[in-house]
């Protein structure tokens, strides 16, 4: 009587429960019933009860109280009880349970049972849940069974041995001798087990591996027999004779042939034969071919064979079966580095797989495509990848975006193409790109100076279409702020002309500022861009002023601070505004501020760093005035680039008191020549020749009036070929009555040795009135440094 009838009744009842609660109630009742059955001892019901318990366990309910019953049933002489008892042991008694040790003795007895089916139960259970201790106890028994018994038991004993070795690796030597002889078995089950056992032994012990290399010819023979044999119904699967065994033998050959020329040679022919003759129209054949390819790639095979293997993978790529395409790409991924050219030949098919419906296939195709991008195919590959980006599933987006960026960075054929590609990615998947994309892109744009007009037009157009993608909006705002004048010009060679008015631009920036989609960082970009435009546009400066002043009371602290400072730039420091907001120079990719997305290295750029226009103005202002002065000096047409002077002067973050900076400068005891004297302000210069081309000029200002002179600034201009470096002045207040001085040092570098001239402009306040004047120094004689001068 099988346990099934009672069991089935219970299952029916449980399944008829309509709610979880009802089911729980039924289960509770049944478990109570089972427990009482267990307590009653032998009444022919025990196996039914355990079977029911195992069902309950599968539903997820606790069943630990059945463990002892398993032990008892295993010890029973009745086969039905043993059978269900062993099943219970496999399900409830894993090696972590203490009770598992109790069945060791029963297993031992059953291993020598007269019925092979009882032996089989014991072997199966040991191989399933045997702990290390149990394995150690029973290993000799297993070894005996390996050698002596009938094939039904032998095959099970072999796999049991595999389990023992996995649990207790030291026992491997016990089984090594028998393993070799098992290879001469005819029974496929035993043969399969033998191959698995030998594989396990070789994996664990390199010496054993060397030993078993001698078995390669034998394995090759067995394989040949399988491949060339006539149809055998017993083991045939879709025309392949015992694919399970073939796969295991191929795997063992792989391990034996790896890094060994002799062994690899011995299997060369066989592998070629299998690769060519196996029919891969069904999965079984493909499985064998797949294993063959893996083996060929992993041993020291000759190049012809490798080519054959890659071609098989290429053929797999064209297979209708999605599974086969998937595993083909997995394998190609493994060899794409070593056999790059071979894989490149199949690039077209791989790229087509990007369009597959299945996500697993898409993922593999993406990884492989990215690995295949090279300088030669970058344009066509990028086209495909960008198409893929727009339709790919969300979980693959950021991987695709970063893959595209990497590829573009390494292989882009031109700057414009690179910028276009990044813009495309930002428009399609801006939300999935990494944070450093924005500063990287900005840096790239600044280096491509010939493309500024094109870039800003494209970005502007993208901006007015959609302001949701934060990274795109940030880059667009920055560019509009920086190159707004180019945008207004309207025409650009590479883009069809569109008339953009100042109002349009300011509208766009205001939309970004006000939109709730914009992150705080984005609004920061937009505000700064608006401010920068004040020097690049002509009519709507008032509008900018009003925008900036509104944000002076913004809740966001960063925006508020910026707005307040920009306001100051409009009001108190208006004369410095143009200088502060000038065009930025090209950024160096590895400059210290750069990697943080922070361009604080440049004091002229108030964008991402906290701007201090007041201090910065003092130092950088001379630069723009330099250009004005130079114009007067002789029509030198310098571009609106700041001279290197201000940027190398130390960035001061302290207040207007700059007295300390001149501490290191020595005032050389050279004659001081007075160059200017007016209204009580006198200006003297000292000059000292450092080298053939370098001169240090110190300007000393003093005040003989009754009142202090305040806001004293000096600007200097020199001819074009001369380089000027103005150090920070000692102060901007000259005490009255000649009680103090202000000095400022100017370094001149005259590489072309032209005649040195310098024009100096002084500006100051005295008694509330602003004064400004200019002095020109015409010559600095090289020997004595005696200047001659002419006041204007």
């Amino acid at each position: 009587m099988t346990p099934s009838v009672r069991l089935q009744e219970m299952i029916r009842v449980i399944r008829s429960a309509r709610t979880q609660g009802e089911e729980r109630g039924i289960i509770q009742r049944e478990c109570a019933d089972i427990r009482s059955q267990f307590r009653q001892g032998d009444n022919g019901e025990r196996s039914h009860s355990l079977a029911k318990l195992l069902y309950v366990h599968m539903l997820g309910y606790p069943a630990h109280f059945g463990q002892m019953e398993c032990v008892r049933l295993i010890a029973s002489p009745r086969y039905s009880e043993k059978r269900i008892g062993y099943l219970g042991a496999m399900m409830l008694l894993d090696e972590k349970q203490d009770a598992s040790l109790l069945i060791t003795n029963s297993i031992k007895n059953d291993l020598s049972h007269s019925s092979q089916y009882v032996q089989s139960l014991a072997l199966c259970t040991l191989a399933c849940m045997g702990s290390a201790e149990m394995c150690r106890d029973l290993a000799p028994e297993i070894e005996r069974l390996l050698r002596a018994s009938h094939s039904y038991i032998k095959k099970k004993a072999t796999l049991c041995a595999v389990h023992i070795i996995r649990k207790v690796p030291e026992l491997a030597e016990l089984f090594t001798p028998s393993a070799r002889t098992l290879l001469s078995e005819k029974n496929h089950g035993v043969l399969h087990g033998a191959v698995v056992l030998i594989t396990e032994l070789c994996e664990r012990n390199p010496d054993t591996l060397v030993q078993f290399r001698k078995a390669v010819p034998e394995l090759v023979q067995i394989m040949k027999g399988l491949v060339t044999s006539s149809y055998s119904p017993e083991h045939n699967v879709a025309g392949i004779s015992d694919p399970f065994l073939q796969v295991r033998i191929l795997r063992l050959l792989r391990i034996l042939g790896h890094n060994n020329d002799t062994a690899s040679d011995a299997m060369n022919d066989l592998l070629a034969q299998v690769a060519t003759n196996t029919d891969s129209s069904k999965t079984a054949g493909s499985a064998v071919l797949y294993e063959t390819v893996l083996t060929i790639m992993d041993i020291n095979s000759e190049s012809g064979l490798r080519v054959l293997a890659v071609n098989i993978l290429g053929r797999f790529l064209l297979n209708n079966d999605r599974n086969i395409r998937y595993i083909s790409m997995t394998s190609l991924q493994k060899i794409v580095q070593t056999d790059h050219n071979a894989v490149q030949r199949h690039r077209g098919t791989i790229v087509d797989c990007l369009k597959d419906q299945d996500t697993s296939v898409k993922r593999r195709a993406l990884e492989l495509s990215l690995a295949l991008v090279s300088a030669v195919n970058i344009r066509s590959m990028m086209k495909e990848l960008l198409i893929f980006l727009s339709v790919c599933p969300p979980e693959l987006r950021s991987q695709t975006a970063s893959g595209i960026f990497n590829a573009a960075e390494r292989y882009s054929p031109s700057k414009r193409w690179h910028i276009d590609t990044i813009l495309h990615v930002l428009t399609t998947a801006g939300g999935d790109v990494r944070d450093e994309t924005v500063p990287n892109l900005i840096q790239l744009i600044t280096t491509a100076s010939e493309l500024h007009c094109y870039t800003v037009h494209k970005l502007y157009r993208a901006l007015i279409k959609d302001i949701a993608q934060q990274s795109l909006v940030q880059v667009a705002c920055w560019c509009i702020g920086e190159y707004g004048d180019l945008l207004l010009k309207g025409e650009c060679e590479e883009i069809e002309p569109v008339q953009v008015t100042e109002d349009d631009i300011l509208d766009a920036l205001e939309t970004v500022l006000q939109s709730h989609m914009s992150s705080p960082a984005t609004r920061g970009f937009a505000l700064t861009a608006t401010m920068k435009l004040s020097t690049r546009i002509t009519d709507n400066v008032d509008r900018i002023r009003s925008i900036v002043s509104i944000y002076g009371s913004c809740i966001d602290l960063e925006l508020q601070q910026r707005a307040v400072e920009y306001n100051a730039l409009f009001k108190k420091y208006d004369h410095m505004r143009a200088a502060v907001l000038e065009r930025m120079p090209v950024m160096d990719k590895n400059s210290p501020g750069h990697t943080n997305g922070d361009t604080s290295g440049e004091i002229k750029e108030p964008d991402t760093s906290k701007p201090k226009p007041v201090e910065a103005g003092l130092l950088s202002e001379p630069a723009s005035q330099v250009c004005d002065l130079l114009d007067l000096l002789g029509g030198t047409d310098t571009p609106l680039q700041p001279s290197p002077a201000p940027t190398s002067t130390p960035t001061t973050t302290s207040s207007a008191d700059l007295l300390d900076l001149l501490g290191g400068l020595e005032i050389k005891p050279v004659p001081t020549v007075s160059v200017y004297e007016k209204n009580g302000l006198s200006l003297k210069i000292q000059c000292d020749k450092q080298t053939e081309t370098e001169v240090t000029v110190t300007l000393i200002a003093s005040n003989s009036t009754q009142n202090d002179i305040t806001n004293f600034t000096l600007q200097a201009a020199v001819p074009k070929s001369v380089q000027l470096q103005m150090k920070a002045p000692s102060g901007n207040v000259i005490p009255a009555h000649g009680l103090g001085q202000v000095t400022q040092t100017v370094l001149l570098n005259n590489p072309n040795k032209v005649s040195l001239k310098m024009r100096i402009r002084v500006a100051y306040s005295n008694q509330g009135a602003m004064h400004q004047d200019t002095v020109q120094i015409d010559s600095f004689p090289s020997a004595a440094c005696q200047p001659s001068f002419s006041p204007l």
Partner: protein
Amino acid sequence: MRGGAGGIQLFSMRFLLLFSRQGKLRLQKWFTALSDRDKKKIIRDVMQMVLVRPPKSCNFLQWRDLKIVYRRYASLYFCCGLEQGDNELITLELLHRYVELLDQYFGNVCELDIIFNFEKAYFILDEFIIGGEVQETSKASVAKSMEEADSLQETMEEYLNKPTY
């Protein structure tokens, strides 16, 4: 693709699961020792992943450090967890072989057969796979073994006539 000492198996099955489309477990076979909690978590995660796959998808998935191979037969999903070094295609054949064995035994097997005779499904599995490895590649052999083993199951009379211990 090398196995190491300490029980790391790079070529074998970690588990075999059968579950219905509604997420009910019908059979579970574990080839490594895991706590009950771990087993439950794995079952939940794998089921979740497999059940959302659209039909005609690829039968292979990557999950944590394992390959998952699954196939749907009528209302049941047959699902395996494999190590990285394993051959997915032969595993598909393995799953198919198991279904054929069940079919041969029950005659036109359906999910209900497996529900009401789950212990038999286990017995058949244990004649086909031991310790995560195939033990018998001949369908006929497995069928014959099952038949003979079943014949050993005692009748009620025989049952009661046998001594207890």
